[in-house]
């Protein structure tokens, strides 16, 4: 029995029933940029960076199940331009000061920006006011860098069973909140062993007093680009 396949950028990509286009592509060694996807969680498709064209229609590849015979375009100028714009949107919306960010070099947002050749966020930055939460003895939350991927929300709810994180607000005021009347992380049950501690693709959820321990050259995306890392260890990357 031959495996089911769809076509992506002219190559056959095998997939298992129920697998998304993104998961199948990554498993087959074809990189599609993404930010809010994580192999361990049900995809929800909010960042839209993984948008591909399926039979001519743009769709988020993480939430679109692969189907036999689909013709998928991914690594084409039009879509890469679209993705670059979405990454520019994210940079415009938050306060992404890479030069002093301890996640720099290991940050997926930054690495996808590199991958897509982004040299500027282009739009007029919004410079939102997002105070940090340092109340927890071992964890710092720097909301300035949040891209609202909800991976921490999902990890805390589904793996840790704690619901430490939620979202509030709407539109451009949507923001991450913690599950405490004080609004402070210290008043939640978060612990450093939680899954939610390890899923943030950017620099929001940080172990305190660990910043800059990894020297330049040894950070996650220093030696290899995110496209190489993501297809070399798709499961690992998703973690």
């Amino acid at each position: 029995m031959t495996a089911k396949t769809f076509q992506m950028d002219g190559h056959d990509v095998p997939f298992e029933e129920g697998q998304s286009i993104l998961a199948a592509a990554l498993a087959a060694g074809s990189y599609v940029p993404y930010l809010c996807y994580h192999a361990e969680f049900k995809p929800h498709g909010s960042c839209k960076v993984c948008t591909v064209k399926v039979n001519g229609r743009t769709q988020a590849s993480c939430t679109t199940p692969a189907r036999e015979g689909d013709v998928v375009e991914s690594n084409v100028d039009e879509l890469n331009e679209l993705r670059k714009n979405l990454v520019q949107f994210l940079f415009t919306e938050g306060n992404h000061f890479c030069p002093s960010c301890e996640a720099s070099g290991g940050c997926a947002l930054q690495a996808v920006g590199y991958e897509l050749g982004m040299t500027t966020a282009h739009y007029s930055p919004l410079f939102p006011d997002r105070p940090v939460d340092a109340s927890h003895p071992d964890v710092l939350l720097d909301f300035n860098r949040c891209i609202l991927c909800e991976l921490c929300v999902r990890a805390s709810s589904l793996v840790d069973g704690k619901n430490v994180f939620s979202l509030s607000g709407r539109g451009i005021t949507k923001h991450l909140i913690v599950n405490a009347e004080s609004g402070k992380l210290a008043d939640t049950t978060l612990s450093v062993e939680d899954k939610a501690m390890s899923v943030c693709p950017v620099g929001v959820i940080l172990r305190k007093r660990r910043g800059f321990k990894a020297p330049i050259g040894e950070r996650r995306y220093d030696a290899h680009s995110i496209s190489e890392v993501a297809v070399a260890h798709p499961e690992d990357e998703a973690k």
Partner: protein
Amino acid sequence: MTRAAVEIPTKKKLRVATTSLAGCFGCHMSLLDIDERLVPLLELVELDASPLTDIKHPGPCDLGLIEGGLCNADNVRMLRVFREQCKVLVAMGACAINGGLPAQRNHLDIRDCLQTVYLSGHGVERGFIPNDPELPLPLKQVHPLHDVVKIDYFLPGCPPSAEAIWQFLTDIIAGRTPHLGHGLIKYD
């Protein structure tokens, strides 16, 4: 010390002006970090206004490299002079591109910033906020260059590496569209 014969070059060189607005000069340092390649570069490039020369205001130039964001009124005025004079204008480095670290004051009230530094500053005696007309006033927020003028190219990094700057300049000199290949785009 041996003194070589000085030749005032006559060949048409690429005329380049550089400046630092609300920057730290790190981008200029990175430009100097091309090291020995400065020699061949300066055979192809004529420096106009720049922190490295005594030309204080740019004349008509082929290329303007600007480091630093817009922090005060003077920055805005100087940027506009550069835009008028330079055919191609480049935002060099994080500050020029997104305000950079100085933009971390953007969520603060500038009045409060000034007060903290000059009135309640540690070890300050008889403090007050400097208010002489010689001093340019700070803007409410720090802005990237493209908030005020058209920018032709963005050269990211804090600072962009010497390799990135070299690649960019050699592309421009050769008349190519500058392209930062893999590993040369960095935001930190």
